[in-house]
């Protein structure tokens, strides 16, 4: 119910009643989105949309930082791994295997 998905703003317009609206692209599907709660949004921004309303702008800088931090996890984790490791490098363990 609180499902909300990110879409890219491809057009900004006003409806006949003066409501700030946009067209947003969700992976190929284009829908009308109300921008009344995100007046700062510009063309090309990604907005988080719930039941036809943009509730927030995706902070691209923050998204990139988080993702890179997650990607870097194992490099940091490897620092506390035992020095002698008999298992072949890069062999994928099944997800969820106990350490």
């Amino acid at each position, binding site marked *: 119910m609180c499902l909300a998905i*990110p879409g890219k703003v491809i057009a900004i317009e006003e409806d006949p009643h003066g409501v700030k609206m946009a067209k947003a692209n969700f992976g190929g599907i284009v829908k009308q989105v*109300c921008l009344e709660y995100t007046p700062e949004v510009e063309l090309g921004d990604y907005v988080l949309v719930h039941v036809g*309303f943009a*509730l927030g702008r995706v*902070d691209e800088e*923050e998204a990139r930082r988080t993702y890179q931090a997650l990607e870097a*996890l194992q490099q940091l*984790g490897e620092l506390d791994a035992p020095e002698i490791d008999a298992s072949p490098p890069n062999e994928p363990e099944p997800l969820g295997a106990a*350490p």
Partner: protein
Amino acid sequence: MKYLDEYRNEGIAKKIVDEIHRAVTRPWVLMEVCGGQTHSIIKYGLDELLPKEVELVHGPGCPVCVTSLEMIDKAHAIASRPDVIFCSFGDMLRVPGSEGDLHILKSRGADVRVVYSPIDCLKIARANPDKKVVFFAIGFETTAPANAMSVWQAKKQGITNFSILVSHVLVPPMLAHIQQSPLNRVQAFLGPGHVCTVMGIEEYEPICARYRVPIVITGFEPLDLLEGVLMTVRQLEAGEARVENQYRRIVSRQGNHPAQDIINQVFEVCDRKWRGVGSISKSGYKLRYEFRDYDADRIFETREIETQESPLCISGLVLKGVKKPHDCPAFGRECTPMRPLGATMVSAEGACAAYYAYGRQRQLHNESEANQALKVSAA
């Protein structure tokens, strides 16, 4: 899709899972608050990747599930009227009231329409001036801005044949309610990312402080949820209880001010009855007096209907994280998504429905058969 697919990367998921294994030394019980989070966890099997010490229990964050039977019966009474066009989000249509659901009413001739957004109801109202258009305004804080805007715009545009039946619920009072329960097992929360997009995170700080419970505001994709678990476990292991924000790409500390402003103009806080749980003080929204002309509850006088829940159903305990769906003897037997007995099976986001949809009842059945076989062979 950008900002979705990246957060489903299996390689990175494995790294986070490894990190959780490294961080955990003791058993912990975490609750994910939102139904959407529960759905993702069960869909991707994230709970099965976690160390055995980390138990996820499923929270009350499914507004369809927790809408009271009285309110559903009230909706059905209004929808049955010949002068009404009754509009609703799609997932509310198959929720059973005391006598059938909205699908059945529609098949009997009621004008029931599914809308994508509450604002669409204004178009329907303008196109049908001889009808009363009623929207079933359910939801948490995430949906409140949209529902509030429908009424705010109706007033501004002078639309008089539109009203909403309000059954809004609020997350923070429910979290406090869970912590106050003598049966409580929940030691930390994965907080509701989209609710906090609207409301910000500050209102969770008193709950952290009062109950010494970590709350990590978390997103909905697999990597979000796993990182939320990691952040939560690190706090628990360190003996900390803070509000942290995993979902920083969307959630700001203050939330969305324009949305909060319209919510506060249109709604005020009230006591609310939750299906399966009962009444919780100051846990909902109702329309303010200034918007009484848009209040379907006031416009359509509905008789008080005696309602009765199934005596088999344990959904109240599931909603509070005390029990899991498979602890219920009726799960997958008397109670299925086709014939739900209670709150947590009625919507796809309910914990019982999520377990059912992803085959957990078959898995549990197979496990119990295997255990049975072991016992037999041992004997």
